[in-house]
């Protein structure tokens, strides 16, 4: 049985939390989705897009230390904390590394935790067909929590967990149907997420400068017909002075004459258009009536195809 990478199940966004005996709520841990594959031999970590990230997280390679199984597929989120709360920007400091030496150096500097919430395969058998209730039971029997591995707890009081997640400045909650089976590659209402902070992966189509240094990114999303719609500009967030300097340097080779956005950005004066190749994860408060982001805040550059950044609201 060769374990080929699967596409994990995705929750749908909701504003109205479901209620009923079969629903439980979990904290939505803000990090990178990671699927662990093990069938004896070496552990493989693969992200949602099918990219292998095994080398990036050496602390998860000794699977026997956190999982009692001869073979297994685990689903979870790798997180890194800043000031006591998960930070996507922080975990990207690990996820984005490719040089072995740097990875090793950062293991200590940026500790990570694998927050496991599902099990898809166990001792040679797919368990995706079993209800979540049973998969969770199996998880508690299989996974041994440690400093780097934790099981995501479930709570029955959904509104309460939502309140607590707001109180603790967390990303949000995911509500799941205990009777539901795991659909590979699926995305539907059996898992529903409610976010306290909204975010979007947006394409950078231009930049503006102050004193010769890039000070804001002009962002866009693709429509179904392939045109890039401007959705706002962001100059605040997690980027540091050094990041802006490096952006400034790299922008020089990416400049294009024509505006990549089909609509006219409100901030156009002095803007330099660039090839729409970069994708940034942006947090924001809400969509404005003019379909732009309110208070966008750049979280990190992400390894996502620009074509996948679509306006689907």
């Amino acid at each position, binding site marked *: 049985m060769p374990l080929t990478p699967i596409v994990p199940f995705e929750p749908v966004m909701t504003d*109205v*939390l*479901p*209620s*009923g*005996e079969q*629903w*439980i709520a*979990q*904290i939505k841990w803000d990090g990178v989705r990671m699927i662990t594959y093990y069938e004896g031999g070496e552990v493989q970590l693969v992200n949602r897009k099918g990219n292998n990230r095994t080398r990036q997280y050496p*602390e998860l390679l*000794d699977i026997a*230390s956190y999982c009692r199984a001869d073979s297994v597929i685990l689903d979870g989120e790798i*997180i890194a*904390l*800043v*000031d*006591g*709360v*998960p930070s996507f920007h922080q975990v990207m400091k690990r996820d984005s590394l490719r*040089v072995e*030496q740097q990875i*090793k*150096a950062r*293991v*200590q*500097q940026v*500790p990570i*935790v694998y*927050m496991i919430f599902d099990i898809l395969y166990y001792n040679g058998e797919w368990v995706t067909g079993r209800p979540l*209730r049973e998969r*969770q*039971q199996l*998880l*508690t029997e299989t*996974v*041994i*929590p*440690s*400093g*780097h591995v*934790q*099981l*995501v*707890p*479930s*709570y*029955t*009081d*959904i*509104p*309460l*967990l*939502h*309140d*607590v*997640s707001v*109180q*603790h400045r967390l990303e949000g909650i995911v509500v799941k149907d*205990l009777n539901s089976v795991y659909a590979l590659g699926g995305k539907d209402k059996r898992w529903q997420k409610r976010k306290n902070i909204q975010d979007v992966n947006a394409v950078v189509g231009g930049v503006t400068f102050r004193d010769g240094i890039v000070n804001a990114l002009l962002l866009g999303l693709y429509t179904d017909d392939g045109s890039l719609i401007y959705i706002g500009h962001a100059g605040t967030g997690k980027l540091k002075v050094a990041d802006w300097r490096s952006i400034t340097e790299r922008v020089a080779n990416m400049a294009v004459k024509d505006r990549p956005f089909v609509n006219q950005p409100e901030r156009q004066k002095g803007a330099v258009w660039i090839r729409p190749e970069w994708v940034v994860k942006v947090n924001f408060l809400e969509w404005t009536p003019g379909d732009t982001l309110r208070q966008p805040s750049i979280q990190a550059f992400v390894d996502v195809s620009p074509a996948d950044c679509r306006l689907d609201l």
Partner: protein
Amino acid sequence: MHTVWKGAISFGLVHVPVKMFSATEDKDISMRYVHKECGSPLSYVRKCPVCDEEVGWEEIAKGYEYEKGKFVLFEKEELEQITEQANKAIAILDFVDLSEIDPIYFQKTYYLAPDQAGGNAYQLLKEAMQQSGKIGIAKISIRSKSSLAAIRVLDECLAIETMFYPDEIRPVSQVPNLPENIQVNDKELGMAQMLIEQLSTPFEPKKYGDDYRERLLDLIEHKVAGEEIKIAPAKQETNVIDLMAALQASIEAAKPVATDPGPAKKTARGKAKAKPAEPAAAAGEGPKPKRRKTAKKNETVS
């Protein structure tokens, strides 16, 4: 050991063919300069700043700057001409007592071994020196540099110490701030002498090791083995277990309120509100405060 020099000791009519070996080795750990970004060791380029081009060895001569910016150039052959004629000989000039030579003169030690059929002559010289207790002062040229040297018997071997010429040694009078005409207190002197007495011990070189080198080697081994070395104590990030425990505490603190119907929230509370606010049985038992110490705790090397 590889031969660093080959020649003969000559004194009077005695001629001792010898090979020379370095008696000491520099164990300093050398590091290379590496480009941080890609990890490649740097290459050095000999470059002429005026012509702005790289200069090959065949285009390079040695030059002496006799006046700022003015050089006289020398070819290799010109320099070889003036190296001492007796290039291949260690000519013993005098025999002296070892105690007459201050250690400041000694530069580097080499061992001498008999070459070819030099065994008898070598043994003769060694025996004679051993019995007289004298050491020979000689002149030797190694790689175009001519040095003063002392030949002595070391265990069952002849050794040669290259020495500085007297004019290479700076006079003590150049040292600033040496005390003059200061009377020392007899009592204090007595104390100091007593202390010296107490710390006096036979010289046991094995007692002393290069601690820095050992620490550095240790550090290198760890790095090579792929283990992380903590340079500074890592900043203690709040643990996820703390966060999970805090969440649990918040849930529990809200428990009494959970049974209170309260004002309707925007979300559909329905049956959920009356339920115990404990983690669902099926879903793991919440945070485990027990932290497994599986993570390798590397020695803090700093």
